[in-house]
């Protein structure tokens, strides 16, 4: 009996001491906030010593770093890392490749060769079509010219 009473007394004393010595959640939170000063995008809440991080991190490394930096703060029992990682923005599309006039002049000549009524001029990447063409042939000619990587095609053809 005596021994168990003693145990009880020790237990009560110890737990009281522990309870009174454990930092308060609000104190832990302030300490963490201080630590995470350089990452204002992350916020923290502490409940019963469990720190929960939230917010948007720029990458996984930043997310891990945030959790790592606070796990040793006194009073933190565990860290729940609820931060999300912002997906990187898609790379901007590559600029459109426009062939040089010297290349275009040659390839446009090849493409228009079989359409005797068609005249084509090339300047600054712009292919200007004049003359005349049969309606049935227009699509074929345009399909062909569109593969040559011109800047644009000005169709001024008279369609017969």
């Amino acid at each position, binding site marked *: 009996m005596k021994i168990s009473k003693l145990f009880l007394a020790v237990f009560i004393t110890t737990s009281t001491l522990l309870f009174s010595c454990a930092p308060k959640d609000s104190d832990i939170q302030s300490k963490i906030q201080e630590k995470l000063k350089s990452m204002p995008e992350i916020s923290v809440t502490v409940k019963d010593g469990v720190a929960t991080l939230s917010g948007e991190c720029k990458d996984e490394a930043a997310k891990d770093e945030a959790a790592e930096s606070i796990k040793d703060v006194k009073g933190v029992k565990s860290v729940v890392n609820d931060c999300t990682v912002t997906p990187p923005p898609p790379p901007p*599309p590559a600029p459109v490749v426009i062939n040089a006039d010297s290349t275009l002049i040659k390839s446009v000549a*090849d*493409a228009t060769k079989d359409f005797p009524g068609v005249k084509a001029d090339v300047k600054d990447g712009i292919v200007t079509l004049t003359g005349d063409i049969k309606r049935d042939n227009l699509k074929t000619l345009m*399909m*062909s010219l*569109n593969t040559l990587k011109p800047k644009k*095609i000005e169709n001024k053809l008279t*369609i017969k």
Partner: protein
Amino acid sequence: MSLQDKYKQLIDAANTDGVSNLQVREQDNVLYIDGDAPDGATKDKLWDIYGQIDPDYRAGDVVMNVNVAASAGTKAKVVTDSTNLNIRKGPGTDQPIVGKAAHNEIVTLQSKTNDQWWLIKTDAGAEGYCYAQYLSPQ
């Protein structure tokens, strides 16, 4: 209205009809549509849609470089109006003619020099460069 809105139907069709490596870019008020069509019928359909939105292709605000994906060994049909197709020594109309492929003849693609000139071989053994516009991959 942006060009992508104007040609929305065309872009949507390219997406639904399985044009691969599709790139739609707007630059200096011209819409550039690039990609590989799965077959000639798809390419034709896209051109018909383009022609409906911009009759006779007058607006000059689109460059559509969508070609039929074809690799070495692909059979292609000669789709000239009615005439024979010249087979040339090199890729260019300034190159000497080394043979002819008949209208509707089936030839075999050896390699693509570019979107304009393909190296082909006929069943009779003639080999050289033909203008790709007159070849329809089968």
